[in-house]
């Protein structure tokens, strides 16, 4: 007999392959994600490059050099592409249409189904959007080459950032239980997350109270955390560990919040039959 976790994963694997199949029907989504990412990266990169144009070689504001800040903002946009897992749209839409009821009669957990279905979306976004955007900009502007050890830390940290993004998007989608204008909620989430994750402005460049708030919020682990590791902007092994521990803490914390709120939401779900 197989260990129970293996059996559990096998039960959800079809949802991952199903997600992959439905992706093939939404190929235009990748064009949209790609254009958004490229345009977004261009705006922030050019804006901050104008600020850092005359900085000395040993670093300007926040200790960033011109290539350093360029790398930060570009990879921040790439991470954002990996966080575009469509969980918020799909959960909101399924709650709104009542399709969620069909899922509830199956002997599986709906949040876990969504998680497995989002994995191929993340993988496809990484291959079809993130890599081309990164290559495009690498041809246009000089970037920092990170140390191999930092790249490994960054890779691990990116996995945690994807998990945090899943929880945040699931919570956003669950607002569909309360309001029908999830478009507005999603737009608020997008702006707030982009700002406090440090995607538009590195947290090191924010004024003190704002930076303290941003460091405390979970969104920091989505962009600023992984980039702190990639660019070697941490204080020894303890500093790197602290970033990772904070991320894991938020993954567990947000996961628990999702589980509790999901149960509470099911209590008030009403779906009309038809």
């Amino acid at each position: 007999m197989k260990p129970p976790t293996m059996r559990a994963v096998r039960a959800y694997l079809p949802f991952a392959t199903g997600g992959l199949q439905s992706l093939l029907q939404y190929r235009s989504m990748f064009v949209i994600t790609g254009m958004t990412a490229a345009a977004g990266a261009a705006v922030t990169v050019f804006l901050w490059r104008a600020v850092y144009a005359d900085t000395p070689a040993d670093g300007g504001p926040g200790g960033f050099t011109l290539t350093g800040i360029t790398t930060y903002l570009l990879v921040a946009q790439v991470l954002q592409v990996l966080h575009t897992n469509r969980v918020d749209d799909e959960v909101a839409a399924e709650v709104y249409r009542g399709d969620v009821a069909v899922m509830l009669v199956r002997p599986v957990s709906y949040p876990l189904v969504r998680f497995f279905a989002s994995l191929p979306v993340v993988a496809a976004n990484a291959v079809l959007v993130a890599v081309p955007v990164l290559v495009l900009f690498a041809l246009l502007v000089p970037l920092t080459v990170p140390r191999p050890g930092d790249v490994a830390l960054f890779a691990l940290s990116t996995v945690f950032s994807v998990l945090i993004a899943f929880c945040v998007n699931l919570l956003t989608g669950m607002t569909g239980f309360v309001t029908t204008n999830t478009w507005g909620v999603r737009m608020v989430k997008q702006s707030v997350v982009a700002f406090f994750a440090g995607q538009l402005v590195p947290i090191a460049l924010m004024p003190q109270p704002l930076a303290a708030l941003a460091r405390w919020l979970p969104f920091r682990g989505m962009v600023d955390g992984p980039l702190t590791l990639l660019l070697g902007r941490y204080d020894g092994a303890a500093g790197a560990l602290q970033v990772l521990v904070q991320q894991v803490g938020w993954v567990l914390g947000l996961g628990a919040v999702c589980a509790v709120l999901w149960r509470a939401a099911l209590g008030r779900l009403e779906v009309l039959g038809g």
Partner: protein
Amino acid sequence: MSAWSTAARYARLSWFLGGVGLHRLTAYRLDFLLGAGAFLVRVGVQTAVVGLVFRQVPVVGGWSYHEVVFLLGFSLLPRGLDHLFTDQLWELSRKLVQRGEFYRHLVRPVSPLFSLLSERFLHPDGFGELIVGAALVGWSGSHLDLDLTATQWALAPLFVLCGALIHSAVKLLFASLSFWTVTSLPAMYAANQVSEFTSYPLDIYHPTLRALLTWVLPFAFTSYVPCTYLLTGDTGLVVWLPVVTAGAVALALAVWRRGLTIHDTTGS
């Protein structure tokens, strides 16, 4: 006489349908507030980013803090005016041709374009953009001690109108592509993303990008060019504004008409 009465008829219809649009607001009050609030958060974050940029340096690409806020606010005005009237073009590009729902605009006793657009006049989000944009322009203008000449005052509303027409023309062009490609949402979305560049001074961008924004997708004429004129009096590019607006509208209408002639709908 007939041109007169046609114009009067369209004006009467617009007035009436605008009222219908406003009535929708009262039916979906929470949704309206959420949409307006979301918009405020978005512009708030954008303004905060500009503020944080100017904590580091006094001037970016030759523009001061208040000048950039002026540009950011001004860019919302034509966008808002366009948003009030042409939001339905998104529906055309997304699904009307694909689902065979477009034919209903061909059988009504008004121009198909008017019929399409008038399905949703006075979109509430447009009001949000106009109000926030005007507030930002007023606030930064008073900090800049901006002293406009009588000509500039007279031209400013025309700049907003021309900018809105450019936005509408680009949207119409890309939405019309759906007559050939069934759905043109990615193309239209991409064009809309490009318009986001105009919230900041074009001087910070790569020259190729600047040329693209000026002469290919002429979004520079919706905010950067008029703002340069209003802030510095430099008339370099602003004289091209009427030409570019007329050209963009003419091209978009030509593509739209061509699209109508080749449009085939599913029968059922």
